[in-house]
């Protein structure tokens, strides 16, 4: 007898990992977000009509665009970091610094994008 090995999502998320663990989680959220976006997009084109229009309304909404832009941009920049470190394992000595660089690239780029989306959406 004993308890099974199952690790629930909430238990896993509560693990106090390093900065790399946060990027690992955000990478998955990014992938999931893009999956939702593409599914909605295909569904809207396939179904059409009022239902399709309603779905279009979701992803044309500025709040959704800010979310999806986060997903795409973070997934791309984080993926690039992982690829570089995979190709040059010696750089893994500086994995923490690589994550700082990633945030230093991501935050201004994403900040500008959010600013432009908000200015367009709310500025008229």
């Amino acid at each position, binding site marked *: *007898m*004993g308890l099974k090995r199952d*690790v629930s999502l909430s238990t896993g998320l509560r693990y106090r990992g390093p900065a790399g*663990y946060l990027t690992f989680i955000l990478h998955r959220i990014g992938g999931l977000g893009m999956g939702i976006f593409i599914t909605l997009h295909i569904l809207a084109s396939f179904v059409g009509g009022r239902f399709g229009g309603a779905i279009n309304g979701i992803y044309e909404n500025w709040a959704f665009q800010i979310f999806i832009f986060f997903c795409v941009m973070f997934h791309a920049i984080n993926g690039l970091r992982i690829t570089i470190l995979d190709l040059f*394992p010696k750089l893994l000595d500086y994995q923490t610094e690589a994550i700082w660089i990633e945030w230093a690239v991501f935050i201004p780029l994403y900040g500008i994008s959010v600013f432009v989306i908000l200015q367009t959406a709310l500025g008229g």
Partner: protein
Amino acid sequence: MEVTVKIFRYNPEKDKRGNYVTYKVDADENDRVLDVLEYIKGKMDGALSFRRSCAHGVCGSDAMRINGRNMLACKVLVRDVGTNITVEPILGLPIKKDLIVDMEPFFDNYKKVLPYFINDSALPENGRERLQSPEERARFDETTKCILCAACTTSCPSFWANGEYYGPAAIVNAHRFIFDSRDEAADQRLQILAETDGIARCHTAYNCTVACPREIKVTKAIGEVKMAMMTGKLD
């Protein structure tokens, strides 16, 4: 100082699920968490179960989650984790009792990567040892330090999701022999690690590197094995 210790408890003979029991202990800031657990077991609750052996960070028996992160209880001081300490078993392995997990699945994965020296060619003419330069030895020095405590493997989200994944510890021990110039089974090990539950399941969360009590750069070792797999070169 008074330390509040919240410990995961599970008795397979009575409990259907685990629960937490809190103890108040008078401890010194330089005490190790293992000392605190020993005190609780000795003076307050003899039924508390946990593994320990050398108590000096060598045997790797007492890996547990302390304040949400994998550590060896014998290597972490009270002053490093504060006066509110939560102690739980490591994740991803079946729990047998309290903080004791079933290590068999971990060792089964470890054995899959052939973690022993393989060389079937004849001994040197003098019949003595196979020589190795200091540089050749240094190539895998880091990964010889592994004590198989499972802190890395049980901190890995890929392992939590799939217990068949060999896990960081197995790959670290494969690295130790793959890059040993005297060993002749690197190709065999790389083939094993190329299987579905092998190295491809590493998604570089880095939890393993931080969890390792021996400060092995686990993700780097995995990265080097990945590169050897891609290029077929062991330099």
